[in-house]
């Protein structure tokens, strides 16, 4: 885990905050010798201000990396101004990475999940939320075998997604986004970091829940252990 590259896919409400938390943690971890890669084809705009952490406009992955390299000088950062799709997924997600999946659609989750099912060693920490609640899913694959259930196994909404990737959406559709709350994004980001911390500090994967649900309205956080 100390030498695995970190790939953050989706630098929006969850990803822009998570990138900062993870970078702060790893910047002071002397044993960490990987790099942090941010991937997003979207741009930061005025309407994103209420939930997303940026200090400049422009491509989200690039803007965040330019910000992070100023703060955290011990880590190599890389950005890619692209959306992940079926054609490029194998180019950006390679074996032995830890993928923080922070996208806003199930179709991209499905593309990434299917690709990761073909790799030998990969970890996905997938976060997603609705208005007040959400979930964090841990998928670990070692030596070509699933250690925890894949993103699609118990989730038909990811197995057969009904939504569209950002590239499939019209400009008009893309400009209309469902309302979200900053604290819900933040809760997802924090739980994703906590899962990563457990893995980083060598907690046995079998002791970790495969999915964690949260609800910021009732302050409930509930783990689910699935096989």
């Amino acid at each position: 885990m100390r030498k695995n590259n970190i790939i953050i896919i989706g630098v929006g409400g969850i990803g822009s905050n998570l990138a900062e938390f993870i970078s702060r943690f790893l910047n002071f971890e002397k044993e960490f010798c990987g790099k942090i890669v941010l991937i997003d084809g979207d741009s930061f705009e005025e309407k994103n201000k209420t939930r997303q952490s940026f200090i400049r406009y422009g491509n989200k992955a690039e803007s965040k990396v330019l910000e992070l390299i100023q703060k955290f000088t011990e880590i190599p950062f890389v950005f890619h101004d692209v959306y992940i799709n079926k054609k490029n997924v194998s180019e950006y997600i390679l074996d032995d990475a830890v993928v923080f999946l922070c996208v806003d659609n199930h179709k991209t989750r499905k593309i990434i999940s299917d690709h990761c099912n073909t790799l030998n060693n990969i970890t996905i920490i997938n976060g997603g939320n609705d208005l007040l609640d959400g979930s964090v899913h841990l998928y670990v694959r070692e030596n070509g075998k699933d250690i925890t259930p894949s993103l699609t196994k118990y989730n038909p909404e990811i197995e057969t997604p009904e939504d569209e990737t950002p590239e499939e959406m019209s400009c008009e559709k893309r400009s209309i986004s469902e309302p979200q709350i900053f604290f819900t994004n933040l809760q997802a980001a924090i739980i994703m970091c906590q899962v990563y911390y457990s893995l980083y500090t060598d907690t046995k994967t079998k002791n970790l829940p495969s999915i964690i649900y949260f609800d910021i309205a009732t302050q409930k956080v509930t783990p689910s252990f699935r096989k």
Partner: protein
Amino acid sequence: MRDFSKMTNKELEDYAESMGIRGVSHKSRAHILNKIYAVTGSARPFDLNPISCVGATLLTMAEYNQEGNCNTHTLVSVSCGANHDFFPVVGHKAGEVMALLKDAMNISDNPQIIINGLPSNGNYVLQEGDRLEFVKHSGEKG
């Protein structure tokens, strides 16, 4: 600890009222005892009839019948998304529990059912120690 088994109904009523419990006048012995133990909480299973607790687990709820005897019910862990609680549903089918708790736990229509981490179905009869989960859709936005 008071021995409630030796108290008359009137004595139980007076004792309950001294604890600030209202609405016990002329009620059944079981009703009064359950009210008292609802207030005293954790002591419930142990002070009236210890024999009834043999074999009980930590997930056990006590309930008192008309004769004042303690019956224990093993609780099953039930969750749906972030909602989670324990219910006395051993012996019931998972589908029955789903119908019972649909609104309370915000269970969607035809959710996937998981028992002890593995896929199951509504006909499964719940046993002691089972973990029952109704799968909630994962969060989409980010």
